[in-house]
């Protein structure tokens, strides 16, 4: 018999969407990532017009709308300008799997960068009582032979004890 009323049972379907990706670095991000891998150096690009640094470097200076193809080394130490300590576990779209918490991220104004832009990376300290803006931090690189030309070639930033 055809249904006289609509179903009380509500059907659902779980699905993991998964798409293979080939991400191009482009020349600018490529140079940045290769410098991490091959030289353990952090490169910013510098706007030829306003002199601002961008790190990681992007193709143009967003403010001046001009190509910024000159690079200079910044860091590896810098000053903590802002931070997040994450307690909420959510899926990482790189894997689809939930992340382990807590973890912390830092916005670091790297030594030598100009214009106040900050570099975003993982921070190796999740105890909020130890964190405040203005702390000195430094990049800790993955060891030789394990760096792949990825942002994670910097393992994390750590607080420089006694730094001012």
């Amino acid at each position: 018999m055809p249904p006289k009323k609509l179903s009380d049972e509500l059907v659902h379907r779980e699905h993991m969407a998964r798409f293979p990706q080939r991400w191009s670095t482009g020349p600018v991000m490529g140079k940045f990532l290769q410098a991490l891998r091959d030289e353990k150096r952090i490169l910013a690009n510098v706007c030829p017009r306003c002199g601002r640094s961008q790190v990681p470097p992007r193709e143009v200076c967003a403010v001046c709308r001009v190509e910024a193809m000159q690079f200079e080394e910044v860091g590896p130490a810098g000053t903590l300008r802002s931070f997040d300590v994450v307690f909420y576990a959510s899926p990482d779209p790189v894997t689809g799997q939930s992340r382990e918490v807590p973890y912390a991220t830092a916005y670091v104004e790297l030594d030598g960068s100009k214009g106040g832009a900050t570099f975003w990376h993982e921070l190796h300290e999740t105890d909020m009582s130890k964190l405040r803006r203005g702390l000195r931090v430094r990049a800790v690189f993955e060891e030789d032979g394990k760096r792949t030309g990825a942002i994670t070639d910097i393992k994390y930033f750590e607080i420089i004890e006694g730094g001012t």
Partner: protein
Amino acid sequence: MPRKTRPVAIVGVGQTRHSSHREDVNQPELVHEAVRLAIDDAGLSLSDIDAVVTGNMEMFEGTHQPDMWQVLGNGAWGKPCLRVSTGGTTGSTVFCAADQLVASGLHDVVLAIGFEKQQEGHTTGGITAMADPLWARHLQTGALTGMAALEVIDEFGLDRARRAAMRYRVIMDQHAAKNPNAHRRFNLSFDMIDDLMQKSPPLVGELRLIHMCSQSDGAGAMIFAAGDRVASLNRRPPVWVQDHVTVHREETLALAGVATYDAQGRLETTTQRRAAEILLARNNIDKPVEEIDVFEMYDPSAWWGLSWIRDFLLLEGDEHLQMVERGDIGIEGRFPINPSGGVTATNPIGATALLRPLEAALQIRGDAGTHQVPRPIRKALASGFGGTLWTVLMLLSKDQPNN
């Protein structure tokens, strides 16, 4: 004055009840509820709609080009159907697009739709996917951040900042309690502030669960008509689109809280303040708190809502904190903000930035029912938020603007 080829009015609005779960409907069916209500509200029939603008964020539901499937419920069959998508601001971009499609002379009556069914995907994971895969995707946690809190705390001290943010949140919840469509209604009161500051689960830094916007299933729809059509569609009083301003910014989130400089060496501002400067100047509004009667703000968290009062109203120092502490932003206060309960109560993301001008229009019409601001509303401000700290700011008016 803003330039406009012809005036545009909002002649109908509709929204679903918003909820954490709508297993009883699929995506087009959810949208249909809001569309049907808007068409009924305008006293129109489907055949009166000349064009449709729709928007959502497709990674939340995992549906590519969702406007194709949506045709089953959104009324677009046989019509021009534009889809715009700009992240959290999507609903506001839908609003701007509908306004421009009418003002341009292309279409006389345009249906604007925003929707999201957050239940079908993972909201935070879906937002995290906005981050660049090469340098930021592994770091971002959706729209969750404690940085806005850090800013307020560093400027005004831990205790005052925490209390102001929680006070803001309680006011929003009290508004939501008056709005039958609102999703989260906790019946919070000011005497619970100390308890909430201790016990609400922390998400990121000083951002606690209670501060953060909800994840809702819901849809909103608005109908825009050319000014010369309004006389024949006067089922409810028209609400005029006076102006709107969109300000986006580059992809890094790292500017938050950090001084950067523009090409002229000036200290850079926020998109909220920039949008307000443009919109208020263009409309000769010197004192927004006095000249604007209500503000529906896209407040993704209590911390952001609190901070942005200062930017949107071009205030200085601690004036925004004082407004919250004095209760100015309450529905009966001097400058009501989010009488609907706002985004901390209700957040179907692709609809959220459309629900702001939708609620503002209801206030101007006097049709907001139990959450109507108890005094005449002539001018209303509404904002959208999305992307990498992007803003759309909209100004609605009871009086036809003479542009």
